[in-house]
Every structure is written in C-alpha cells, then in structure tokens.
C-alpha cells in the first residue's frame, strides 16, 4: 500500500513566485494496483511522484509505504523499496559504463557495494538471458557502452534495471514519451509484462490516453493539484478514450482557453 495523507506543497515559499500546488492532497493506492495517471501539463503529476519518492520536500502531510511512515526518509533510503523510470532514457543508466556493468550495478541494489569484484561472472548468463528476453538484440551488446545505445534500447534497459531486484513500488513518469510510437508500444508492453509478473504496485504517468485506458486497473486524472477523476477496475473497463478526451476539453474551457 502507498498512501499520501494531507500533503501540502508550495513551490518557492515566501517569495513573490510562491505557488501552492497541493493543499491537503490525499491518495491511497492498494497493493498490486497499477494506476495510470493523466492530466494536463502542470497539473502536478511529476510533483506527486517526486513527493512519493522523496525527491522534493513537502510543507505538510505524510507519505506511507505499507504501514510505515516514510516521510522522514531520504530519497535514496526510500529507493530500496521503489523503482523509478524517467521520461529521459538517459536517467536510468550510466552512459559511460557497459551494458554488463550497468546490469551488475542494478543487480546489486540493496546489497553492500564493497570490495568484491564489480561483475559477478556467475550472473552474466542470467543478465544475457534477461536481455535476450527483450528481443532487441541487447544480449549481443554486453560489452558496449550504454551511451551509444538508442533511446528505446536504453529505456528498455532502464526498465529492466529498475525492476531487477525485488521492489514494492514502480514509479513511471511518462517513460514512453521520448520514444517513437513503435518503440513506445514495445516498452509499454514490456512494462505491463513486468508489472504483472512481479506484481509490483505501479503508478504510471502518461500523456498517451490509449495507454492510460488500456493498461492498468485504475485511472486517475489530475488537474491543478487535485484528483478530478478516479476510476477503479470496473468503471475503468467501461471507460473510453473519448470520455477522457471530453473531460480534458471541458477543463480547458473552464480555464478559459
């Protein structure tokens, strides 16, 4: 379970640019839920994810993971239980390290980074297998630096690396937005597969309404720091892209655009 309780968040507090993005924001996500989140630019989706992960501080409220209040924990501490994939494929991998080295790093998450050899040779076969499972030929590029891979290849690796060790929560922020439609479909399918296989509680922010409707078992729509639509499994099944698009347009009209 993941829960945000009474979150208050101001950007630039105490200055002329002060802006309240969340005022008493509440959200509860049950274990195993796969939540897709949509909403206009600036509606606070990334801010919400940053608050969950501890990337930004809040003025009030608490974040719960399971029964534990993790509000006081630093970002890196929270990441023991959280995996995250960003919109920018470069954020999830080390460009100057090889595919094999990157996989080894990810495989060691949660364990001590001591003076043992960086690459556990016995695991190399397992990495190769995992990469082969992607079906994009990465298993033949184990010694290639990740920086020379394409965005889609890197994002596939980032996803694999984020979910390699047991995690409870997966946070995806427009992780298909920088990819071409075909690669985006591929990464989206891969995401769905991993989330189902590992039963990870997942929050996926996306601007692709088709993905939002097709994947996951709950749908949220955000607007100006509030959740204005929350559809659970059953209602979501009946939901169509047109419905969400309609709501999007209505909001824009209300805002006077």
């Amino acid at each position, binding site marked *: 379970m993941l829960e945000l309780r009474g979150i208050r968040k101001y950007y630039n507090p105490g200055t002329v640019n002060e802006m309240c993005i969340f005022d008493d924001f509440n959200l509860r996500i049950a274990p195993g839920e796969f939540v897709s989140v949509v909403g206009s630019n600036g509606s606070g989706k990334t801010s919400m994810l940053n608050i969950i992960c501890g990337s930004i501080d809040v003025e009030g409220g608490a974040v719960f993971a399971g029964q534990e209040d993790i509000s006081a924990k630093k970002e*890196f501490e929270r990441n023991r239980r959280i995996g995250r994939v960003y919109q920018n494929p470069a954020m999830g991998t080390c460009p100057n390290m090889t595919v094999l080295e990157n996989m080894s790093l990810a495989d060691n998450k949660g364990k001590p980074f001591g003076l043992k050899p*960086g690459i556990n040779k016995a695991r190399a076969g397992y990495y190769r297998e995992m990469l082969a499972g992607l079906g994009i030929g990465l298993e033949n590029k184990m010694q290639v630096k990740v920086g020379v891979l394409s965005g889609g290849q890197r994002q596939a690796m980032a996803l694999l690396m984020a979910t390699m060790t047991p995690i409870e929560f997966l946070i995806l922020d427009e992780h298909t937005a920088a990819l071409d439609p075909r690669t985006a479909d591929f990464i989206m399918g891969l995401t769905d597969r991993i989330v189902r296989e590992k039963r990870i509680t997942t929050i996926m922010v996306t601007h692709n309404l088709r993905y939002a409707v097709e994947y996951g078992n709950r749908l949220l729509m955000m607007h100006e720091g509030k959740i204005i639509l929350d559809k659970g499994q059953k209602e979501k099944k009946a939901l169509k892209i047109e419905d969400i698009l309609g709501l999007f347009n209505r909001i824009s009209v209300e805002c006077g655009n």
Partner: protein
Amino acid sequence: MAIIIGTLEQGLSYGIMALGVYITYKILDFPDLTVDGSFPLGAAVTAVLLGKGVNPFLVLLVSFGAGLLSGILTGLIHVKLKVRDLLSGIIMFTALYTVNLKIPGKAYVPLFTETTIFDMEFLQVFGSFYGVAMALMVTLAAKFLLDLYLKTKSGYLLRAVGDNEVLVVSLAKDQGLVKIAGLSIANGLVSLGGSVYCQQQRYYDISMGTGTIVIGLASVIIGTKLFKSFSGKWVVSGKIAGSAAFLTRNRKGVRPTTAVLAGAVLYKACVAGAMALGLDPQNMKLVTAVLFLLILVCGMERKRKVKGNA
C-alpha cells in the same frame, strides 16, 4: 641524460598526483582544486616525519592518510554544506596553506641527510636510474591498486556517481557519501604524489603546491586524449610512456590510468624541453597557462550531464 632522468622521476611522482586528478575530473566530474593544498600537504607531513627518522615507506602511508582526510573535508563542505564544487576546493586549499606552514613550522625544510625511499640499498642495481626505478615502483603500485579498486562494486559506484547521480540514488545509495569517498581517495593519491616528490627533491617548500591542479589536469587530458586518438595503435611518444603502456597492455587498449601516467611524464618532458630550449623560468607560468589553454581547447570534450527529476 640527467635531464631525462630528472624528467622521468618528476613526471612519475606527478603521475601519482595526476591519478588523483583523474578520479575527480574524469570519474567524478568534479573540478577539485583541493590538490593545490593536498599535494604540499603530503610533502609537509613527509618533511616532518622524515626529520624524525620514521621509515620512509610508512611516511608514504601517513601522507596518503593525510590526503584522505583533506579530501573528506572538501567532500563534506560540498555535500553537506552544499557549497559549489570549485568553491569547496578553493576553501580547502586556502585553509591547507596555513596547515602546510604549521605542520613543519616553516616554509622551507631541507632534507639532505634524512633517509628517503630513494636511499634503499637494493636500488643500486639500477645504477643511475635508481630514482626512476623507485618512482616507477611506487607509481605502478598506486596505479594497480587504483585499477583493482575501480573494478570492485565500490569502484563501480564511484564511476556511476560521476556518470549519472540519479542512478546512484535509484540504487538506494547516498550519492553524497560516494562523492566524499571519491574525493578522499583522489586527494590521498595527490598527497602520496606530494610525498614521493618531496622525498625525491630532498626539500619541502610551501610553494611546491602552486599550480598542481594545472599539471594534474594537463596530464589527464594529454594522456587520455592521446591514447584515445591512437587507441590500440601504440603510437606513443616518449620511451617510458611506451614501456609503461606495454606493462599494462590489455585487450581493450590502454587503461586510462596508464594513459594518465604517460600524460604526466609527457607534460614534464614538454616543460623540460622548453627549459632546455632556453625558456626564461620567469615566463614559465605564462607559457604554462597558454599551453594549458591550448590543451583544453583541443581536448574539448565536456560531457553533458543528466539533471533533474522532471
């Protein structure tokens, strides 16, 4: 001949220092100016301990330790107090100037009679190359240990933090601590280089740290650039660079650490060459600055950094 030997000896001890600069500049992507203070710090510690008759090899270790400490302090200033990287280094090397005066109690200490690592009897077999042999041994030991470290899990994390901090945080590791550790090891090596240099020159001078960062950066950039553009082809100018490279030759070509050592020797050779051609020592700094600018411009290769969470 004497010039060649002197160049090799100095180049190699500066090489150890350059290995430290390699860690900060290339791996951590942190332009660390602490080295202008930590290089003479190693020398200052060395001058005092040698004067007390301490085993010169133990002195190397203590100097390394002193450097570790100074690196930790720079790291703490940067990570915990959130001071910009350049400024953290400036603060540290300014502070270290006083420390480096206080440790020996004066600005100049001659070390003519003290026993140094260069006075070991077994070195006699190397004839007039005894100094080069000793410097090479310490330098290669430092290089191999660093190579080994960079292949450990901890070393991987160090490389990762300079490459993509966000990933280190994703791995549930405190990126600040990793940086502090990196700065610490780097300055440890710089101080070790200072200690070797001091034992070799047989004096300590407070001003011997001035411009260390320039020598270090120049060595790193010359070395890595040269061996990148000729990767695998073994076009190496300078004899020792060639043999050093040969010693550590592996399938992938030259290790960056080897390249950095070669770069340091080459840089020293250039300076010695300029002096031999009659360059007025008074113009030295200006020429160095121009040379360094040229190296920087030719080696333009700043990597783009991954930033932010959006």
